[in-house]
């Protein structure tokens, strides 16, 4: 029954009330989830900010038409002004143009790498969590193997081996993008996999799973319809962390010379370049750091909202 939890004053009442008022038999779980998500103020704010950021980086460069690599030695390290709304860096390059351009890279790398890692992780984790015995052991063996490989040299090798061929296949920038997304994704799925598996371990002994099993639900159905939706809570949190981690990993890769060509500014790279000038030109680091923070914040609040909205435990 929906109203059973508020017996405790410690639980926020809002989502529960939403649940109680919107419950109607003909509503699909997804419409309901959407409805609950809309009531989640922070999540909506996060979504709005995130969409705005995407719009800004997508269309901003069309409006703010300053070249990202226009060097101007008369305007080094200038604080924000009308000519340069976000100031300039130590080569006098316009930071607004660079931030807008860099946002395209950072946001798309962050999101795409997150999707890659979560999809791989969830698939492997749920297979392992469902099938005990040898398949579980083999998959966890694989997970351990990936966990123990030092990611830096392996990333180095992957990118070194495939950079040229990707460049010929789909061009320098897109090739690097695909490579980096796959490489980061391929080294971050293990946490999601272990989390999903652990959730499965806990859930597969639960009564509602037993019940579904008793009713003759197939393994796949059990997994997809009953356990997985319940296991998604920590995965969504992991996903939001992955977005941040991917943005930061990309900056580390640029630093090692394996990321995008050095004259292409991603947010992580701008932050890295700015660090030694922090005392005289704080604006340089501030905007890049702020942009990463804001996007992580927005994604995380969206995650929180999603997590609450998707929480299908309405029986309790």
């Amino acid at each position, binding site marked *: 029954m929906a109203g059973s939890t508020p017996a405790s004053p*410690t639980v926020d009442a809002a989502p529960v009330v939403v649940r109680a008022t919107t419950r109607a038999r003909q509503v699909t779980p997804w419409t309901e989830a959407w409805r609950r998500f809309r009531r989640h103020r922070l999540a909506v704010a996060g979504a709005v900010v995130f969409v705005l950021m995407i719009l800004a980086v997508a269309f901003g460069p069309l409006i703010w038409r300053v070249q990202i690599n226009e060097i101007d030695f008369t305007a080094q390290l200038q604080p924000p002004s009308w000519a340069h709304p976000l100031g300039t860096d130590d080569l006098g390059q316009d930071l607004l143009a660079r931030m807008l351009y860099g946002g395209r890279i950072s946001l798309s790398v962050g999101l795409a790498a997150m999707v890659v890692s979560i999809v791989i992780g969830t698939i492997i984790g749920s297979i392992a969590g469902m099938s005990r015995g040898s398949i579980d052991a083999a998959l966890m063996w694989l997970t351990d193997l990936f966990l123990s*490989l030092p990611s830096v*040299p392996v990333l*180095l090798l992957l990118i*070194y081996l495939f950079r040229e061929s990707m460049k010929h296949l789909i061009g320098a920038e897109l090739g690097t993008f695909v490579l980096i997304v796959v490489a980061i994704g391929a080294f971050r799925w293990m946490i999601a996999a272990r989390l999903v598996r*652990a959730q499965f371990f806990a859930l597969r002994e639960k009564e509602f799973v037993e019940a579904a099993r008793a009713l003759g639900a197939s393994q796949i159905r059990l997994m997809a319809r009953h356990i997985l939706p319940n296991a998604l809570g920590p995965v969504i949190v992991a996903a939001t962390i992955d977005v941040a981690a991917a943005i930061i990993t990309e900056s580390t890769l640029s630093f090692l010379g394996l990321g995008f060509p050095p004259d292409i500014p991603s947010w992580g790279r701008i932050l890295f370049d700015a660090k030694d000038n922090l005392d005289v030109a704080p604006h340089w680091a501030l905007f890049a750091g702020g942009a990463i923070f804001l996007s992580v914040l927005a994604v995380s609040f969206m995650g929180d909202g999603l997590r609450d909205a998707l929480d299908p435990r309405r029986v309790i």
Partner: protein
Amino acid sequence: MSRYLIRRLLITIPSLLGISVALFTILALAPGDPFGELATNPAIPPEVQAALRAKFGLDDPIPIRYLHWLVAMLHGDWGFSFVSRVNVDTLILQRLPTTIAVIGAAQVLALLVALPVGVLAAVRPYSAFDQVVSTFALMGFSLPTFFTGIILILVFSIQLDWLPFVFRADLPGSGLHWWWAEFKQSIMPIVVLGLFLGAAMMRFVRSAVLDVIRLEYVTTARSKGLPERAVILKHIVRNALIPVVTLVALQMPAVFGGAIVTEQIFRVPGIGSLLISAIQSNDTPVIMGVTFVFSCLVILCNLMADLLYGWLDPRITYR
């Protein structure tokens, strides 16, 4: 239980072998060699670099190099560093105390902050406390450690002149004074790393507790009239710990190797900085040695996590 343990331990042998093969192949295929600095120096004939490569077996076929390494390893010989020509195990052992002290302390700090804060935030979700704490946590892991480290240095070492920012593993002196000096030099690296780790961990704890807090047995426990404290500690936290244990177990080894940036900024001579300098100079035996230690740690931590699951949730069976 003991059968499960034995089986798990037996599985580790092919695991370790697999990891070592994969790693060795990757390293052998990877570009570069440890003698790069010789190359730009016109006074050193290029043959020297080539002779060194040959002497250290870098030009042998990969399977042969691997076999050499494996046989030596089975005899307890970890090989020697191409760069410093010192035995790999000596190098690792030298770094171990500092690593455990600093990185371990950071991990403990992370746990100490993340657990209570995460639980409190989840107990009152979307309260002012939760939102402030969550915002800080998000700031924590959206700023790379190279950045937070420099901010701390600028404030505490340069502006205020309170703390040194070069870590010395062999601080002279003794007694209370020594402890004070040790504390002063360790606090910044521990805080930078601890908060970075703690931020992510806090988010996980919060999420895990939120998952549990609405379950029926919690309500039952409350309705029995148990004090709130007991409900939270005994019923909620214990059950919420499963995903947290997973995360901590996963993070533990990665933290030792992944503290590279923090170690670099504060010049902490830890295992992570050993690994990164070995990677930068393509010092294969050292990379192999360090990652081998990490692999053992990963396997050990995962095993411990699996055993802990059983303690946390008696319904989980080991089959």
